[in-house]
């Protein structure tokens, strides 16, 4: 959704860092900064989902780095990265190939077994040990003793995790060698004000990772954080994402920290917009009103579920009631709240899914974004993985651990959900368009308030409510079928699934049309029409009923999309 500058090639490099850079996350950028501070030359290489590995292979062949670091942001990235590392080796790249990230930290044995091309996994907080690895590769006795390193020697060995960084302020600012993306000419950057979390959600991989490191929660000083924000501000950045697992510290310190951050930004004349992640029990009306005054546009709130049984199983430590109140509070403050509904986890039943859908129905008037329907991914190292394995389940590659629901009715609903709400489907498409439209409108509210049209905000919210209400209607019908129909009758299930898919498609087409109407001639969201136009250009043909008109237009059949 943001325009990213292209990466340019310059001098040969010592370390090539591979990550899905489009996600605008920080791990590879942080490692690059640490390596650069040590005098090493680095290059960031983008490798996204479903991307052809050949461009990265060519870059590695050209640069011949001594170390290639594969940074795993999400579990679904793992197969692609393993294939890429194999391709690098097959292409004759002789570099040491290592992998970093929370998931590799807990799955190093499986990763090394699955990929002979992978030389090592650097477990733990890699900033603490990456320089030692990059500078010790000439001597096996040196690199094999790097803290946190797992390798075959020839048997599997793993060293103790490195000590966590004593202070996050000692880290250099992330390397942003490939420039900053923009949105409506406003620069965008991800920053982190803290690491870890003081809660203990049973499914949370970062939480398990930082606990294993012995540093559950650390904060940067406000001064150090604002130093980075100010530097980015002077490069044109106005929109910031605080990619903290837990932006707000516990207890009374949260008000103090927010006040200090607001004061420091104001003192330096740095007027920004930002988004952050939080939990429902963080949402205090006065505190979030203050954050909105400081530039908060949107929160990604960890609702996860509206079913108390599921919330307890997931170790959220929050009530469904509190979740509902948080969404209502954010709505009153006109702060857009995005969240995912984890409808499915290994112990889901028809009844837990029903409870979630009932919760969402109550929330429709208070939510300005499209609901998203997900399943819990079970990661190694988490309490959820231990519980699953203790039951003799979760066998297989742990990226993430596979599982089947014990309640077949819930399992059928999970399959229907995958069919109807796939990441490449119409529902995900309208969700993305709506998110972009909101961003553009909220940026206008923040930086050009005189031009802000509140009516457009109401229309966007109405579009979201329409999509949500109708999606939930389909869910109700699916629940009724799963409860009383013959769930093993493929003919019946497939026929109904096709009808439901058609309904969701129709809802999304209608919503897209309304979004286009809002954007038409609107200064606030000029890019929506452009994006919509480019999407259409990519796929459409225009023809008259008369086949000769088609020939005159020189149109080709719409190519298959694989």
């Amino acid at each position, binding site marked *: 959704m943001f325009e990213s500058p292209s990466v340019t090639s310059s001098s040969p490099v010592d370390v090539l860092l591979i990550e899905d850079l489009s996600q605008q996350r920080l791990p590879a950028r942080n490692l690059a900064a640490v390596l650069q501070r040590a005098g090493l030359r680095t290059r960031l290489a983008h490798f996204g989902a479903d991307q052809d590995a050949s461009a990265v292979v060519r870059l590695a062949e050209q640069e011949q780095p001594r170390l290639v670091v594969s940074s795993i942001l999400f579990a679904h990235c793992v197969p692609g990265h393993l294939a890429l590392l194999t391709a690098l080796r097959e292409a004759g790249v002789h570099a040491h190939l290592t992998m970093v990230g929370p998931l590799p930290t807990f799955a190093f044995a499986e990763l090394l077994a699955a990929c002979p091309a992978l030389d090592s996994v650097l477990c733990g907080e890699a900033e603490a040990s990456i320089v030692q690895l990059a500078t010790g590769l000439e001597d096996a006795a040196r690199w094999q003793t790097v803290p946190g390193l797992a390798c075959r020697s020839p048997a599997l060995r793993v060293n103790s995790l490195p000590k966590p960084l004593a202070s996050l302020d000692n880290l250099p600012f992330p390397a942003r060698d490939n420039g900053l993306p923009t949105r409506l000419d406003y620069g965008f950057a991800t920053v982190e004000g803290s690491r870890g979390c003081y809660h203990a959600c049973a499914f949370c991989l970062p939480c398990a990772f930082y606990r294993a490191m012995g540093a559950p929660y650390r904060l940067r000083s406000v001064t150090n954080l604002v130093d980075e924000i100010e530097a980015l501000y002077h490069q044109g950045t106005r929109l910031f994402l605080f990619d903290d697992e837990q932006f707000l510290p516990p207890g009374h310190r949260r008000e103090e920290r927010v006040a200090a951050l607001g004061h420091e930004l104001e003192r330096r004349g740095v007027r920004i917009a930002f988004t952050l992640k939080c939990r429902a029990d963080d949402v205090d009306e006065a505190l979030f009103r203050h954050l909105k005054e400081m530039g908060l546009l949107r929160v990604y709130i960890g609702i996860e579920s509206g079913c108390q049984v599921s919330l307890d199983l997931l170790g959220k430590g929050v009530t469904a009631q509190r979740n509902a109140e948080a969404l209502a509070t954010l709505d009153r403050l006109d702060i857009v709240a995005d969240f995912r509904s984890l409808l499915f986890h290994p112990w889901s039943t028809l009844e837990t899914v029903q409870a979630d859908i009932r919760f969402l129905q109550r929330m429709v008037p208070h939510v300005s974004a499209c609901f998203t329907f997900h399943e819990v991914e079970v990661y190694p190292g988490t309490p959820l993985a231990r519980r699953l394995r203790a039951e003799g389940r979760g066998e297989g590659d742990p990226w993430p651990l596979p599982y089947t629901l014990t309640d077949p009715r819930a399992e059928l609903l999970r399959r229907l959900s995958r069919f109807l709400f796939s990441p490449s489907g119409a529902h995900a498409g309208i969700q993305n368009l709506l998110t972009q439209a909101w961003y553009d409108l909220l940026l206008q509210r923040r930086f050009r308030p005189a031009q802000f049209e509140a009516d457009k905000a109401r229309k966007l919210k109405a579009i979201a409510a329409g999509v949500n209400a109708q999606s939930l209607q389909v869910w109700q019908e699916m629940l009724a079928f799963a409860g009383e129909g013959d769930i*093993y009758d493929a003919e019946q299930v*497939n026929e109904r699934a*096709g009808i439901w898919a058609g309904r969701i498609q129709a809802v999304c087409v209608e919503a897209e049309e309304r979004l286009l109407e809002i954007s038409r001639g609107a200064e606030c969201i000029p890019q929506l029409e452009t994006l919509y136009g480019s999407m259409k250009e990519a796929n459409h*043909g225009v023809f008259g009923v008369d*086949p000769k008109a088609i020939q005159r237009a020189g149109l080709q059949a719409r190519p298959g999309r694989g």
Partner: protein
Amino acid sequence: MAPWNKLPKDLQKAILTLIVLYGSTGVSCRLGPVICDPPPPPTTAPRPTVTPMICDPPPPPTTAPTPTVTPMICDPPPPPPSGGAGPSSQDRLPLAEIRAVDIVWEDGLTFGAETPWPGARYRWSTSGGTLSGSGDRVVWQPPTEPGRYLLQVVADWGPNGLAVDALVLVVGEDGSVTIC
């Protein structure tokens, strides 16, 4: 002897149950792949007892004019003990695989369905106009009314998988058709 697929579904189930219980002697292989499938499951899935739940009443309305959400959260019963249904129940569920199919414009108002998986049955539908033809190729006759219409195809492999794709077809005032 009536063909298998003409038999009432209940009778099919009864025969399959007998096959499982007593073997398939006397039932020829003309039953085809159906006999390879296990019978529909006897209702072995543990249905957790739903106990009536008492929801707390919503708090009394406050004097504040701001609407406040007071959702009534009813807890469902706890999940059943794991392993009760066993994996075999899930193995027999449909939608074993979510597959892909693409609608491709072929010529004029003819559309085709393309998928790398063989053996699909196709179901076409549209929100306006009429469709003729069947299988992996149809012809859409647009309606006279201008507007946006949806053309959808579902590719169906029975219990093994399902796929869907859709196109938006826009009929203009002049009768022209645009594919989105």
